[in-house]
């Protein structure tokens, strides 16, 4: 989780990623961020997020995104 928060902080240092649950709904993340996130997650965690998982629910909070990473890691 710490590594993920660090990636996110790199994009938006001023956002409280531990507690924000509306990253998409409040337009905090944009399409640039999504692409950067997917590439960085791939290089840090070695997981490729499949297209069908790139949906708002998965990116609305750091927690939800981390859960997705964990699920994908288990599948590996």
């Amino acid at each position, binding site marked *: 989780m710490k590594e993920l928060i660090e990636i996110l902080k790199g994009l938006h240092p*001023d956002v409280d990623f531990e507690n924000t649950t509306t990253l998409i709904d409040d337009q905090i993340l944009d399409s640039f961020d999504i692409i950067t996130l997917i590439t960085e997650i791939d290089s840090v965690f070695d997981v490729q997020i499949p297209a069908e998982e790139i949906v*708002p629910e998965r990116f609305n909070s750091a927690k939800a995104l981390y859960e997705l990473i964990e699920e994908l890691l288990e599948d590996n």
Partner: protein
Amino acid sequence: MQTNVLEYLENAVQKAPNKLAYSDGTVHLTFKDVSQRSLAIGTFLIDRRHINEPVLIFMKRSPETITAYYGTIYAGSYYVPIDEEMPSIRMSLIIETVKPKAMICDRKTAEVAEQMNFEGTIYLYDDIVSTEVNLHAIEAVRKRVIDIDPIYVVFTSGSTGVPKGVVACHRSVIDYIDQLSEILNVSEDTVFGNQTPLYLDACLKELFPTLKHTATAYIIPKQLFMFPVKLIEFMNLHKINTVCWVVSALTIISSLKAFDKVIPEHLKTVAFGSEVFPVKQFNLWKKTLPEARFINLYGPTEATGMSTFYEADRFFEEDEIIPIGKAFKNTDVMLITEDNQLAEPGEIGEICIRGTSVTMGYYGAFDKTNTVFVQNPLNPHFLETIYKTGDIGRKDPDGNLYFVSRKDHQIKHMGHRIELGEIEMNANRIEGIHSACCIYDKKTEKINLFYDGTTESKEVLKHLKAALPRYMVPTRIHPIAKMPLTANGKIDRVYLKSLIENGEV
């Protein structure tokens, strides 16, 4: 001969009043709705004497905004779009340049507008859209309008940090729309999926051909471009068959592997432009949609929209570049060398445009206009204005044009035209920064900012985010002890570039 873009709308409403014209999936407007609303807004503006003047349109991206544009044109005025995506500094500069007396807002943007340095009157779209139409007044205004009267001023990034407002008239837009429609094969069966913002000239590709051919245009919600599978599902639901997108919108879909899951099954025409399509991604699209037409478009805002096209009807090798092709009909694209001669095949030259599509220059900026809208150097005999794009190109023996590079420090990044100078100017404004320089690294497609000063890089990023649109914010920020200078005292860009290329920063 058609002399007013509104004739497109008037013909459409005769032909197919109840057909869907514009929709964003939530708000749906038929041609009759579009006509009714545009006439109402036109009547209102005429009644308030906002005739033949700039009218600021500050609304969210929706079909209603389009009717505010047409309403403004009905009043014999010209629309100047601004948008919430723009930083407030940029909006202020636009207001200072154009000094509009009227602004049309929706309920949400009106709150922002109240805080601006705007001295004119703010009108709420919802309040004026039900004005009773006065055809008499509309016709009286129409009689006085001629085809070289402006219909819009759209702002692009400027090298000195001040955005430039390109003024375009009926004549140029009609010429552009007629030629573009032919190239894209637009018909009443066309269903557009609009991706570009409505505050740029890029959206003309959907707005007017939809009227001309009684087609339908969906304004695809911006958020969908973050979620490619949902995006394609939206396209399939609405049977979208034609798109004119920036390359990065297309590559989001292919690079995130959305085609593994779903394909845009109705898509027949894919026009793209504003930047180079990476061949690997292009081939992926071509493989997924073997029946579709792929068209590369190139052109500057200063020549109304697009000036050249190339039908990419084959796969490309990894080391190949997709050409920008040949000029639109009724447009001449010349390559002019540094000694003012036409370039030979294979020789590089500046891409210069001649034709009806050449716009009327920059609003309130004759000095800037005169540096790029110039007398054709090949014609010493009579008045003939060409537009110098600042793009360097080269033609192959078949006459196909290739984009080579920018003359100055303007770059294309994620489909947006960016003057690196504008980023630098904003960085230099930050307290504690002595000097700043932006370098675009083509390989990683990242904007790098170098600066010397006492400010923390985190702080620099915070300031730039507040001052610049998102796509202009540097992705790499490097504090350096001392800015390197060349012999004649200019920032040594070549050295800074080498630091990036050698991985030293």
